[in-house]
């Protein structure tokens, strides 16, 4: 009964602002431990550590919960914002 995160995100309605990520990540995390927290903690599983150790984040599936902002705003992120008006996830069920 378990579904992949991608499958779950596929249930949601997104208006993706292509080419304009609303969260910018540092190329390399200032704290690898904090990057681990984001990799584990992001409900959409959007944070990854590339083979060469750099940070990768895909803004398209962001659920705009703010977890990464609280956990690693200064150590992994360069900036955190909501997407531009009407862009991003649109919750239809509250």
């Amino acid at each position, binding site marked *: *009964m*378990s*579904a992949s*995160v991608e499958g*779950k*995100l596929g*249930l*949601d309605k997104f208006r993706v602002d292509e080419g304009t990520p609303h969260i910018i990540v540092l190329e390399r995390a200032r704290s690898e*431990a904090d990057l*681990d*927290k984001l*990799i*584990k*903690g*992001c*409900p*959409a*599983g959007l944070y990854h550590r590339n083979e060469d150790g750099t940070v990768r984040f895909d803004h398209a599936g962001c*659920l705009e*919960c*703010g*977890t990464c902002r*609280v*956990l690693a705003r200064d150590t992994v992120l360069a900036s955190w914002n909501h997407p531009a008006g009407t862009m991003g*996830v649109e*919750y*239809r*069920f509250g």
Partner: protein
Amino acid sequence: MLTLSEIEHLETSVPELVDKLKMHPAIRPLIKGGRAVEYSAHLVPEGGQSMVPQLCADNVLVVGDAAGLVINVGYMVRGMDLAIASGQLAAETVIEARQKGDYGAATLRAYQDKIAASFVGRDMNTYRKVPTFLEKTPRMFSAYPELVADFMTELFLIDGTPARPLRRKLMPYVKRAGYTNLARDGIGAMSAL
């Protein structure tokens, strides 16, 4: 609900945790045959009264959990009632402001007064010490629920061994939790709640 500071101690990821919850024997039969229609995530501010931000400014009122109006007393989390009530008080304030034709901060400050006078502000104040108590007392989420579960097993398990007096059945568990712990945390809980 998961406390953010616990994420680093997780063995799995947050999405996997949600799956595990759905498979839990107490949950699984409840959702059997159901279909997921949306997947969402939300941060719930549980810092209590000390986390409540500025509630009004020119043309702006802040309600619900955006205003930090959440009360976690350990056995229950309240947010819905506070959100509905604060929404209602905000609406009353807006109606009054509309009648005056003025939505400036000075007029909207009436919202703050209404919050303070209502159960919303008063309960936030009553429980202002709880977040710190829960943070300092992780046993509330581990040892003590285990204690209660062990009590209940002892009370209801019939396995053919002759019954012992209640106090003898329960004492080993109380001892394991620790008399000092129980006393101190009991006093702490009573003063915070």
